[in-house]
Structures are given as C-alpha cells and as structure tokens.
C-alpha cells in the first residue's frame, strides 16, 4: 500500500469517529486531518493558522466529488462497525444496535442495495462469530434469517430505540425456536419414511 493511500485510510478512520458530532458530511472528512496523530488538535484558526481542515478540492480528490465522498464515509463507518463486531469482547448483539444506525438508514433509503449488502455482511460476520457450521442450503437459510432479524431490529430502533434490544432478543429467540421445530419435523419425517420403507421391504414390495 502506498504512503498516500495509507494516509487516506487513516483520514477515513478518523472521520468515522467524527460521525457522532458532524454526521455523514464532507465536513467530517475535512476535519479529520486535524486529528492526525502528529498534529496538535486545533479548534479555531486563531490557535494555529498552519493546521486547517482539508479544502473542498482536497476532500473531492481524496474521497470523491459531491455525495460520493459521503458514500465513502458511510461505507467506512459500516466497515468499522463490522471490525468492531469481530474484535470487541461485548456480545455481538450489543454491537448490532450500538452503532447509531439511524444516519445510515436515512442516508441509504434511496438505494436499498447497499443496505441489503450491509445486512448480509453483518449476518455473515454474526454467523462466523457464533461458530456456525451450517452447510449447503442451510448456510443461506441461516444468513437470510440473521439479515432479516438485523434489518428488522435496525428499523425498529428508528422508531423506538429504548426497546430495540428486547425486540432483537425476541426475534433471535423466535428464530432459534423455529429452527428447532423445523429440525424436529425433518427428524419425524425421516422416521416415518424409514418405517414405511422397512414395512414395504418386509412385504417384498421393495
């Protein structure tokens, strides 16, 4: 990785921590340079005229023009969330809902595809962290179920943040119970099939 792309990555990482105060804006990207490790943090021009936020042209050349820069910041914020899921000691479901997703959903509402991709990434990471060993089509079923639960919980949090955790818990419990019931039905069907196979064999019909 070149020095300039490393710097860009560093600025993007710092900008994600400024989302809480500045939102998903070009200003957050511009102000990220003020928080580089070898820079003194500066709030106003009077303190140090040499340390200024990035100009609009610099933000555009580093992160993209217009809304492209905002999109870059949103994706970096989402990636940061997924990394946090993998590396944090907190239960993954606390992190599911601890990332103030309201800004993300509002930002992505005009294009559902990034939201769907993000939900899939969260579901895949959650399945990996829970040491899921599903194979074949069960792999897809598990992830679709987790992505649906995550999306529902995120939407619930927009309207009622205080009940989001209990809503997520109820969805996860319901999903496990449904999976258990389906497994029981499959097992019972298997017994019935084997019984009939044995009966037909004993009568010489097979």
């Amino acid at each position, binding site marked *: 990785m070149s020095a300039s792309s490393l710097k860009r990555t560093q600025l993007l990482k710092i900008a994600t921590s400024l989302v809480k105060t500045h939102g998903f804006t070009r200003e957050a990207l511009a102000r990220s340079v003020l928080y580089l490790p070898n820079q003194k943090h500066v709030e106003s021009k009077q303190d140090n005229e040499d340390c200024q936020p990035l100009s609009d042209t610099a933000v555009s050349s580093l992160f993209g023009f217009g809304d492209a820069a905002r999109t870059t910041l949103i994706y970096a914020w989402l990636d940061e969330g997924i990394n946090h899921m993998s590396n944090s000691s907190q239960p993954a479901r606390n992190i599911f809902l601890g990332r103030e997703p309201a800004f993300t959903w509002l930002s992505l509402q005009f294009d559902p595809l990034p939201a769907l991709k993000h939900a899939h990434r969260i579901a*895949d990471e959650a399945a*990996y962290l829970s040491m899921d*060993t599903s*194979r*074949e*089509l069960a*792999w*897809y079923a598990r992830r679709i179920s987790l992505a649906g639960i995550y999306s529902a919980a995120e939407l619930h949090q927009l309207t009622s943040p205080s009940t989001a955790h209990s809503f997520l818990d109820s969805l996860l419990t319901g999903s496990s119970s449904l999976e258990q019931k389906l497994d029981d039905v499959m097992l019972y069907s298997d017994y019935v099939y084997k019984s009939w196979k044995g009966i037909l064999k004993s009568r010489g019909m097979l």
Partner: protein
Amino acid sequence: MFASSTVTRGLSRCFNRRFLASQAYIRPTPNDAATSTTPSNITLEQHAALDSALRVDHAGEVAANWIYRGQHFVLGKQPDVGPLIQEMWDQEKKHLAVMDKMQIQHRIRPTILIEAAKIGGFGLGAVTALMGKEAAMACTEAVETVIGEHYDDQLKEMESFPSDHPSIPLLREVVKEFRDDELEHLDIAVINHAQRAPAHALLSTVVGMGCKVAIELCKRF
C-alpha cells in the same frame, strides 16, 4: 478382469499409506492455525479466486459423491464392479468431509446449485450404470479427467498466494492429494474397460462438456 481390479486395489492401498495432507482435517490438532484460520493478508482478487475455487471444489465433491451413489444404486450388488465403486465412493466421502471443513474455515459461500449438483450427479451415475459397467467406468473416466485438469489449474493459480499463513501450503498439499486421487480413479476406470463402453467418444465428450459447464456455473453461483 478380476486380477486387474485386485491389482488396482492393491496399488491403491499402497498409495494410501503415504503421508496425506488431508489427515490434518480428518484428525485435526486443537488450535492448529492451518486448519482453523484463514489468511487475512491476501488481496481482494486473491480472496475472490480462493472463494470461487473452493466453492467449485466443494460442489465437485458433492457431485462426485452422488455420481458414485447413483452407480452403486444400480451396480452395487455386482461382485466384480460393486466393491470397486464402493471403494472409490468412500474416497470421495473423505474428500467431501475435508471440503466441508475448508468451506467453513475459509468462510466460503457454498454454491446455491448444490441440490442441482446432487440430482445431476445421481442421474448421471445411475443412467451410465444402467447402460452397463463399461459405460459407468467411461463416465468415471470422463469426470475424473475434467476434475484432474481442474485441480491442476487451481494449483497453478494458488502459486501466487502468499505462503506465510500456514493454511495456504496445506491447501496446496490437499489439492495435490485430491488431484492424485482423482487421477487414480481415472486409471482404475481405464483399467476396468472404460474404453469398451458403447459410443465411448460421444459419452466422454458429453459428460466432459457437462462437467465444464457445471464448473463455470458453480464459480459464479
């Protein structure tokens, strides 16, 4: 006919006594990074290549299992070819068990066409077995030819992967071992009169083309 299959099985048992890379997955050591972690320092392109390669390998082993299941369904009770098919099928079951673990280890998306692979595999095995034991061997010969070449191509692609993570050299050894096993099945099929099958050239071409189409589909889906 009996002597050739006996000699073949004897040779096969000798080969099985060599050190096998797949044993790392069959009898895993606890906390072995080579079998439980995936490299994080590979590029996105390399990760995509690894993802599609292992997805195809996994689907291929599922299909191979079901081909042998289909052949065994028809010819399993025949004393000359039944035990031979069973032995090759047992080896494919071992391949599939290893691929299942590698799919989870490297976080690979399995193909969504897995059920089609099972139905297609069983159908191919059963239909060629109904045509006769030579046709069943011709089917094995055609499939194992394509799979052997496919594993060879993968080994060439994997040469560019960084070897600092222990899972990558192990992956290469496992692919080499599986390639050698598939080529062994190819030899067994030829020794057991695959080339005497009716319309051998046509059968081999159709089965081979079908395998190549399946590989391309599984890479993407």
